[in-house]
């Protein structure tokens, strides 16, 4: 009888312990699930630090810059290979992009300042509309908007179109602006998703030029 009482007592204690642990665990999971849900609905396009992996694509930092041939606004084909041996800033931008509009004057200034030292900035319009080659009206509309932007912003560096066609090679290009910094050996030294500051851009340029390392 006494033994049964002890066994029942121990069993009840264990049951109570499990009951408490289960309740505590349920509460913890409930709170954590609410927190996770809140986090999931909290959208922010977090700018990548230099060298970070852009959303939807692999980081290019440390790798050879992918080659391409695109047209400029006059229809001339321009190959990246023609800039071999130069430090580059390849800036993907779009006419509808507010942050691009803000950073473009910085790029104009930086080209003026570092162009004589060999830097070449290349702007690539990436409108995100995935136009088909036969969509003449669409291309005409895009080109007119790009030309207007280039004129208004006094962009003196080469501007190419149809950056959308480079999305796979350049890490997705899911959001604008995206800047890729390339050294004179053709290696990507930094990749920046989103606008940062003119000072940051200048620091990356100096790195691409082999200064301040």
């Amino acid at each position, binding site marked *: 009888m006494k*033994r049964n009482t*002890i*066994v029942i007592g121990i*069993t009840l204690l*264990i*049951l109570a312990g*499990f009951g408490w*642990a*289960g309740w505590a*665990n*349920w509460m*913890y*999971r409930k709170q*954590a*699930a609410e*927190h*996770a*849900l809140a*986090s*999931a*609905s*909290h*959208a*922010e*396009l*977090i*700018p990548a630090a230099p060298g970070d992996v852009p*959303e*939807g694509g692999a980081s290019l930092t440390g790798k050879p810059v992918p080659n391409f041939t695109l047209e400029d606004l006059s229809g001339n084909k321009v190959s990246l290979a023609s800039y071999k041996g130069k430090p580059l800033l390849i800036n993907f931008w*779009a*006419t*509808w*992009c*507010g*942050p*691009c*509009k*803000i*950073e473009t004057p910085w790029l104009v200034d930086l080209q003026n300042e570092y162009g004589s030292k060999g830097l070449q900035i290349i702007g690539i319009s990436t*409108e*995100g*509309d995935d136009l088909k080659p036969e969509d003449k009206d669409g291309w005409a509309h895009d080109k007119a*908007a790009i030309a*207007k*932007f280039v004129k208004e912003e006094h962009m003196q560096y080469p501007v190419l179109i149809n950056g959308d066609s480079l999305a796979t090679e350049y890490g*997705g290009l*899911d*959001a*604008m*602006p995206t800047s890729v910094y390339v050294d004179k050996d053709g290696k990507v030294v930094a990749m920046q*998703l*989103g*606008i*940062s*500051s003119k000072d940051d851009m200048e620091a990356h340029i100096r790195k691409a030029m082999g200064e301040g390392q």
Partner: protein
Amino acid sequence: MIAPTSPNRLHAFGALVLAAGAAFGQQDSMTSPPRQSVLKSQAVEYLYPEQVSVPSGKATLVTLHFRIQQNLHINSHTPRAEYLIPTVFSIPDTSGVKLANATYPAGSDFALPSDPDQKLSVYTGDFTIQAKLVSTPGNHLVEAKLRYQACDQTQCLPPKTITVPIDVIGK
């Protein structure tokens, strides 16, 4: 000396241990936040109504509710700069329902940290569009469209057009 525990008691104890273990084991799967690609996710979601009844042939005001993901904004219907893409609601001509008029909310002032002096006109959070619909008699599964362009504080997503499905019953 305590007598050996009977097999039934052992089974009951084992079941308890297993049950408790299973309860603890669920923790990881419950608490891991759902993995999502923000850049690929939809910035604007249509909330309601899914179905409206309107008198046929008569312009009827319907309030459409939308939600923008937290920390994103979209341009209002009347952005302050020409290069920015406005938010526009439309209904395809072939749907049996015409959009007589759409009234958009006024945008809120918003400035990017990198250019605090330039005020943008944007929508954030929940917003509504007052659409005046004119329906022919019958049931119309309307695939209306909302075109917008979303950004956060440092970067912008490409312009997008989402489908706004509304079952319009013209009576």
